[in-house]
């Protein structure tokens, strides 16, 4: 069974790389959704033996949310905002790849420093960290507001992998609360994007830098 799990891990990492190089906005959304679904499958395969029924329910909720609800929300936001079709990266794709790989290396090092007790899946920690950093990459190197939400979702996926692999026996309550928060977060962000697209003619966040304290050219004299 674990081989499946580990295959999924590898798949997730590959998805990270794909996100780092994908140019199309819609394909980005699809990739994130796919990653969420795959991550949602993980707990079913993580536990030894037949999956716990509660875990099954939980996984279903996750998959529906991440695979269906969020993408549709984002897609709507994108269509409303009439954004151009590509993500407009601030750095070149090769550079993104390089950064992504660097993130993998760093996270595998950290993973080696942080041995997880009693988990039987290798690469959990590195994969989740790598995914988190990929999310950061999306946020920091893409200029659109939507891509930043996508990055946030990727970070969530990374955390999620880690969490689900660990707490199959945690009280449901907490996960649900967490999940609810994530959901509301994405929802609110969607609204925000909607407002942004209405206020500003497009959602390039370069517009969103009016508030600053930079006293440009007032020094060095």
């Amino acid at each position: 069974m674990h081989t499946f799990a580990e295959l999924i891990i590898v798949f997730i990492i590959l998805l990270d790389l794909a996100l780092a190089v994908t140019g199309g906005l819609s394909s980005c959304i699809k990739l994130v959704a796919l990653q969420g679904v795959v991550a949602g499958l993980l707990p079913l395969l993580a536990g030894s033996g037949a999956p716990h029924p509660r875990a099954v329910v939980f996984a279903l909720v996750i998959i529906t949310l991440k695979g269906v609800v969020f993408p549709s929300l984002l897609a709507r936001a994108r269509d409303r905002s009439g954004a151009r079709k590509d993500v407009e990266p601030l750095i070149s794709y090769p550079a993104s790849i390089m950064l992504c790989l660097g993130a993998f290396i760093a996270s595998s090092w950290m993973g080696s420093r942080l041995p997880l007790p009693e988990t039987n899946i290798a690469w959990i920690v590195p994969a989740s960290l790598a995914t988190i950093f990929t999310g950061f990459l999306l946020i920091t190197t893409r200029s659109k507001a939507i891509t930043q939400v996508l990055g946030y979702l990727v970070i969530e996926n990374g955390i999620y992998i880690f969490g689900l692999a660990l707490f199959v026996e945690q009280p449901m309550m907490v996960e649900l609360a967490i999940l609810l928060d994530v959901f509301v977060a994405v929802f609110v962000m969607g609204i925000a994007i909607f407002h942004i697209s209405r206020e500003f003619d497009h959602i390039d966040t370069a517009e969103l830098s009016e508030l600053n304290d930079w006293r440009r050219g007032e020094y060095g004299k």
Partner: protein
Amino acid sequence: MIITLMLLPLAAGILSFLIRDDNTRRTLLLWTARGHFLLTAVIIYTTLALGFVFIGEPPAVVWFDYDALGLLFIGITSLLFLGASHYAVTYLALEKRDPGEDADDGSIFNNAPEAVFTGCLLLFLAAMTAVTASRHMGLLWASVEATTLLSAPLIYFHRHKRSLEATWKYLLICSVGIALALMGNLFLGAAGLKTGSGLDLGSLLAHAAILDKPLLKAAFLFLFVGYGTKMGLSPFHTWLPDAHSEAPAVVSALLSGALLNCAFLGILRVNAVCAAAGLADFTGGILILFGMFSLITAALFILGQRDYKRLLAYSSIEHMGILALGVGLGGGAVFAALLGALSHSLTKAGLFFTSGVVLACEKTKRITDVRGLWRRAPRTAVLWLGGFFLITGMPPSGIFLAKFLILKEAMAQKHYWLAGVFLFFLAMLFAGMAKVFISMTFGEREAKPGEKPFAEPAGMLVPAAIFFACVIFLGLFMPAWLSGLIQNATGNI
């Protein structure tokens, strides 16, 4: 009882979305705040009277309960909200009368519906109550995230570009931070996996000794960065000036006075676990480092500041740095940090309230455009100046005592260089703020064409005055029960 404390604002919040009439909604807001305060007072009183049950020994898994630390912070929050609600009522009435021509570029905008504002305000209170009450790191996390989401609409009350930008930054930066905090929680759980204590605070503290150290360290780092973002420690503070300057004064007051403390509480919780696990030096070093860094950042940015609300925001960053410094130093400085948290919340809230009146009077947030406040709005000017003296740690005030205690602790621990840097940047901050407040308060300004004399709204000034009075009183006479409470609270860190 605690549950009621949380449910009361929750219910009121949901209700206020449904109420059509403004006045009834405002009354609801007022009475909810009063009720909440009353309940808090009762809880504090009873707990103090009965003594603290849950210090140290682990109870059965409880999700919501108050130890001394939580009590202190809920006390601050509730008191602050009481003042804020009274302020907000007058403020909303004022806003209704002249819907905003924008302070800076004069463009016309319209406010968010008042129902949304009031509702979010109340839900925000509920979330913060949950933060202070929760004994489970997961719940703590969830409620902190909730505060973020619920305060975002508040910041976007004035619907114009800049407030939207501020909201967006606040939302995204804080969410990212909170995501990291979640990761930290997971590490914490992983660290406690073999103890089976999950994320329950009590049992974590109980089994702290056998937690897995590297994972605990990682957990602390993630949680520190995550909640530190929310708390506004530099360099994670970037959202703070924008949000504080664009939000309505009452919201800025709540953010600065209550929300930052809630995030601080999160750090304190995990710090307690680490300390119990014998990692006090590790956490202390990090807290001191970022505390000083925040202080320095605040000093540098206050010197070049053009907007007085942003100035206040940076001063909040400074004080958060001081709190972190105090907790990092440990010993007597922890008491100082908590005292400082209390005094700072009251003072800063009062200052933000006053800043709202200044904005209403002068219709600008640019420091250079405000002159001779003394003439146009004497009471406001008095409060403005008094707030400056208090926030910069002029005795008598709790802030002064806090700074003094922290300095003494640093000297006692022979951190001479630390003390030196601390003093240098405090002096820099003092000078920078003094220049601003003097130039704003005193002097003369020729009246703008068609400017009518400004009637100072008492409802917006009285809360500030009362808060300042409380802070001064703290500096002159600290009631035994309060010092006892803070003393007990230091036991929870």
